[in-house]
């Protein structure tokens, strides 16, 4: 028996729940050397900004146990080049594009949302809230539910009504559920959980921070249990809100874990740096695991971890 791999996210149907996560798929071109990008559910673009951006100085990455510390600084060509070059290329290859947006204030986010949703072919918009808020005294938008809500509201108001807006949240905030609630009240159609976790390493040779930014973002399998907990908690509090789970997914079993915690789709990120064909491998592994468990469709297992202790898996699988 084969599992129907289609999944729905706020009214949008994707052929399967495996997405390339923001910042880990380049423009799609780089990964297309290794697999057909039309095969995965969607490609979330590197966060698009209004203007070209050079990013942070080197060193930008450091390896940590089962993780990677990075401080890239959102280097990118800006929305103009994205719309003229990167998006048409992605669409020409049959890729489904989720545009990640990043800005220095609600106005920039809104302008990006307006321009991106006016372009043909953007399936969804993901709001990267882990950007420094210039008025936030060193904090990101995601650190303050009110600021995050302001950005989400601005994006939703400027995005074509048929394009879902997902807010991407950081897990290392005082009250994740309050943040999630604030974004949903600001009319986010769904949530992406989680962004990289603020972390730091010191180079033992120089006794200076291992990445030039000092504090960077930790990603990779080291943060997966944090991602699982975040998805689980938010799904418990807001069961009607569609979630995209991400953080350290390396195998199909890892993806299944996030689905069971409550995600309707799964982002594949840092593992792509070490295994460029990871997205299609994880998709294949996930499909096998769902078939082994007798799931008719992906949604059968979404949130399965929330069923009462002792309830058989068959109960959520409808048999």
């Amino acid at each position: 028996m084969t599992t129907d791999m289609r999944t729905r996210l706020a009214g949008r149907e994707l052929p399967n729940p495996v997405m390339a996560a923001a910042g880990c798929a380049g423009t799609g071109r780089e990964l297309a050397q290794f697999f057909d990008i039309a095969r995965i559910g969607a490609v979330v673009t590197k966060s698009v900004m209004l203007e070209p951006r050079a990013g942070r100085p080197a060193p930008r990455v450091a390896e940590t146990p089962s993780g990677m510390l990075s401080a890239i600084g959102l280097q990118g060509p800006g929305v103009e080049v994205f719309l003229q070059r990167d998006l048409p290329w992605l669409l020409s290859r049959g890729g489904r594009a989720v545009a990640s947006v990043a800005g220095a204030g609600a106005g920039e986010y809104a302008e990006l949302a307006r321009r991106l949703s006016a372009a043909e072919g953007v399936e969804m918009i993901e709001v990267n809230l882990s950007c420094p808020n210039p008025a936030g005294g060193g904090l990101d938008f995601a650190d303050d539910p009110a600021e995050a809500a302001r950005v989400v509201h601005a994006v939703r108001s400027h995005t074509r009504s048929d394009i879902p807006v997902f807010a991407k949240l950081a897990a290392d905030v005082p009250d994740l559920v309050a943040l999630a609630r604030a974004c949903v009240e600001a009319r986010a159609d769904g949530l992406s959980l989680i962004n990289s976790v603020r972390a730091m390493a010191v180079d033992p040779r120089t006794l200076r921070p291992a990445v030039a930014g000092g504090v960077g973002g930790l990603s990779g399998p080291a943060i997966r249990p944090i991602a699982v907990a975040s998805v689980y908690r938010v799904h418990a509090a807001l069961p009607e809100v569609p979630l995209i789970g991400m953080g350290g997914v390396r195998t199909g079993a890892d993806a299944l874990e996030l689905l069971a915690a409550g995600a309707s789709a799964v982002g594949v990120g840092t593992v792509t740096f070490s295994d460029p064909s990871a997205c299609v491998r994880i998709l294949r592994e996930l499909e096998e695991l769902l078939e082994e468990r007798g799931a008719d469709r992906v949604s059968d297992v979404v949130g399965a971890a929330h069923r009462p202790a002792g309830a058989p898996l068959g109960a959520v699988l409808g048999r």
Partner: protein
Amino acid sequence: MSDNGPVQTRSPVLTVRRVDAYYAITVVAPQIAERFRSGQFLSVAVGGEQSSMLLRRPFAIHDVKPDYGGTVEFLFAVRGPGTAWLAERRQRDLLDVVGPLGRPFPLPRDPVNCMLAGGGSGAAPLFPLAHALRRRGCRVDFVLGAASADRVFSAISARRIAETTTFTTDDGSFGVRGRVTDALERAMDDARSDVVYACGPMPMLRTVAAVAARQGVPVQVAVEETMACGTGICMSCVIPVVGEDGITRMVRACVDGPVFRGERVRFDDVGTIPFDALGAPGWKARGEDSADPQSGVADREAG
């Protein structure tokens, strides 16, 4: 997916050898061997499938042979747990290899005199280059330097390929005491070099580029930068490079390089974001300027 792009393979190890202070691993990888052009590199996953070391290790390809359908060899020094793991590989072990990666050295159309300058194990990509140049009828001369005699790399094969080979060591234990760049100018004069190719650490490349500029000779440099992915997605290996249009961009050493025209690399600004780089803080678009970070660096005409 494409005919000349990189492939990901599980490649059996053919040999692991000690070469002076380095290790050399040869793997059977026909698809990489057939696509390879000198200057390109490969990346290897380390530590096995459940490894806690997530990042692939990039290595220049040192040799390609037709045996077993195609083999590639790379060299490394043990610098940490990843390379220590690699040094323990044995024949028939499988390695997860991606390659060939990056832009190759451009080759001259005419049989000109080529000076190849390398430092330490950074000299590795110069050897397949030397063979390719010789096949085109070019004269090849080497200047190879290292900290000490056991780190001068492939001295015998250099002597076999090249018209002349100058060795330098920091401690004087082999060849001339000093650095590659101390011997370069004289060697270039003697060989009447028309073009320079260089690989090695950034300070050496900076000086080689300056020497070549002084002599009015074009220079191609292959940079060694820290990389996380090697495939162009992570943006961790960027360096400031001036494009055809005069605009400095932070370009990826892995896919826009590792080979660059020496005079285009802003060596003094490596590790920083120059204030005038495209998209630097405070940077402002100038009228019709292209905002495309990939344009302008693709020009690879050899001198």
